[in-house]
């Protein structure tokens, strides 16, 4: 195994996702070895060189047009073998969460998931990640010749592309339709056009205090839209049917890592904090000055959310 770091780069709408650039730039900053990119599918990978990849390993086949565990796991394994890279890093995306544990079991490779930090410890890459819903952090050390890490989105800022170019190595993984074990037969559009919560830069969440789906839709969503934010919710709000299951933030919902998290009428139960405590800036609006959320808030307003949220929206509109 070489000290090369292979970075799995996901694409959306023909362009690399922001998480791919975040990973590439972080991998370069580690200074632990040459950085190459892995592209699965036939996307145009030319933008990756400018973000630090010196080589792009590209695995494409008709059977990779949509995601399947079987075909993708095979693609990952083939790219690792072709590159000889000792480290594979990926964003903690739905693809990585599904395929990489299977890959790790196949290769006997150590897997460190959900890291929020990757550092270079004398040439060896060590991860650091939250456990116990963020109540503790721990270093993740991998002993095997091939190490695999996933990094949570928004763990590192994305800077301007440093420039450069990459040569493309086509990897023939021999993937056919027979490798598509579990087939995607339909895609359901998301409830809204907003960015996926786990990757969102800004989130506005509402709690039980919204009292109805109608009020959640009338207060939380418009404020989120005004901020270019994604709407989230506490479990109490989800269980009461004010918001969708996919919108729950917390230990048994989504773990989010935005730069701005606004909690409207959310008490700040430990299971809710588990999902959002790493947000860079937390704003709490709550009428109870003793609400635990204020202990975690960067800025707090003690007041009635039905008064504060519309006012905030109007103030933002004023520009």
């Amino acid at each position, binding site marked *: 195994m070489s000290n090369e770091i292979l970075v799995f780069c996901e694409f959306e709408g023909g362009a690399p996702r922001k998480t791919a650039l975040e990973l590439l730039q972080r991998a370069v900053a580690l200074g632990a070895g040459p950085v190459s990119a892995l592209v699965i599918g036939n996307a145009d990978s030319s933008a990756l060189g400018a973000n630090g990849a010196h080589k792009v390993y590209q695995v494409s086949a008709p059977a990779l047009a949509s995601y399947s565990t079987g075909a993708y796991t095979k693609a990952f394994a083939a790219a690792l073998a072709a590159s000889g890279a000792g480290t594979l890093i990926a964003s903690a995306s739905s693809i990585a969460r599904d395929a990489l544990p299977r890959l790790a079991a196949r290769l006997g490779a150590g897997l460190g998931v959900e890291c929020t930090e990757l550092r270079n410890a004398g040439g060896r890459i060590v991860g650091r990640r939250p456990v116990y819903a963020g109540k503790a*952090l721990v270093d993740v050390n991998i*002993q095997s010749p091939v190490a695999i890490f996933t990094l949570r989105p928004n763990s590192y800022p994305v800077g301007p592309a440093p420039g450069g170019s990459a040569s493309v190595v086509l990897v023939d993984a021999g993937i056919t339709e027979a490798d598509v074990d579990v087939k995607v037969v339909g895609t359901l559009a998301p409830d809204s056009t907003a960015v996926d919560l786990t990757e969102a830069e800004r989130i506005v969440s509402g709690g039980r205090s919204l009292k109805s789906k109608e009020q959640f839709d009338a207060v939380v969503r418009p404020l989120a839209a005004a901020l270019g934010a994604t709407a989230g919710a506490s479990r109490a709000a989800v269980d009461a049917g004010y918001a969708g299951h996919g919108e729950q933030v917390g230990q048994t919902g989504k773990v989010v890592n935005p730069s701005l998290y606004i909690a409207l009428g959310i008490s700040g139960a430990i299971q809710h904090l588990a999902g959002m405590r790493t947000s*860079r*800036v937390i704003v709490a609006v709550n009428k109870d000055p003793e609400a635990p959320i204020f202990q975690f808030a960067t800025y*707090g307003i003690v007041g009635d959310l039905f*008064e504060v949220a519309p006012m905030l929206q109007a103030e933002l509109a004023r520009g």
Partner: protein
Amino acid sequence: MKIGVCLKQVPATDTRIRINADATAILTDDVKFEINPYDEYALEEALRLKQAGKATEVITFTVGGADAEARIRDGLARGADRAVRIDDPALAGSDGLGLARVLAAALKAEGVGLVFAGRQSVDGDSSTVPAMIAELMGASQVSWVDKFEVEGDAFTAQRAAGGGMREVVTGKLPVVASCDKGLNTPRYATLPGILKAKSKKIGVMSVAELGVDAGSVGAGAALVTFTNMGPPPERPAGRILSGDTASAVSELVRLLRDEAKVI
């Protein structure tokens, strides 16, 4: 068809964490344990399929010590038919792959056609064991499902995909499905269920009985180790914006723009 359910006990989600002296794990002496919340969805889904006549038996599988039996009994009281508990000194210090090795061996030995596990354990929050089990069993897998149907030897499921999209997927049994919130509403044990559970069987298996090489599990075989466990960094003290609502709101917007630079 037999359905296997992976059932783990975890510290209750409101547990306060105390870290051990060598900073590798938490102290568990006075921790209250619960069934991992996601495993409750897994068990519920299995019980519903049995009620719908699609399964003959629901068996839970746990890697854990005797102290896990109270949670296993809870699973039996909710309606599981029997339980397998895997316990062996050789397992101490196993990583996810080590756990998956013995779980896969036990599931295979029972000949289960369908396995439900939780999306993640809420202690380590890893979400890796189910896919590892699937690979080691030679079964297919589907992660984080919130809708699941089975017809003959085929299944259809829904799961979250990237970019907030949702996917409908199909495949063939055997499959390991990891279960997410939204799949169902777990039942609680009833009094008759609790009484019935007393006579249900919890079979205890060692690594050797499962035909697993003791050298492939436990601390010695762990590829991943945790060190340096510590509390998360303190957040700097926050600021309550005082004054009437209107001035607090305009101050907030100013701070978000000029100080925090997040809008």
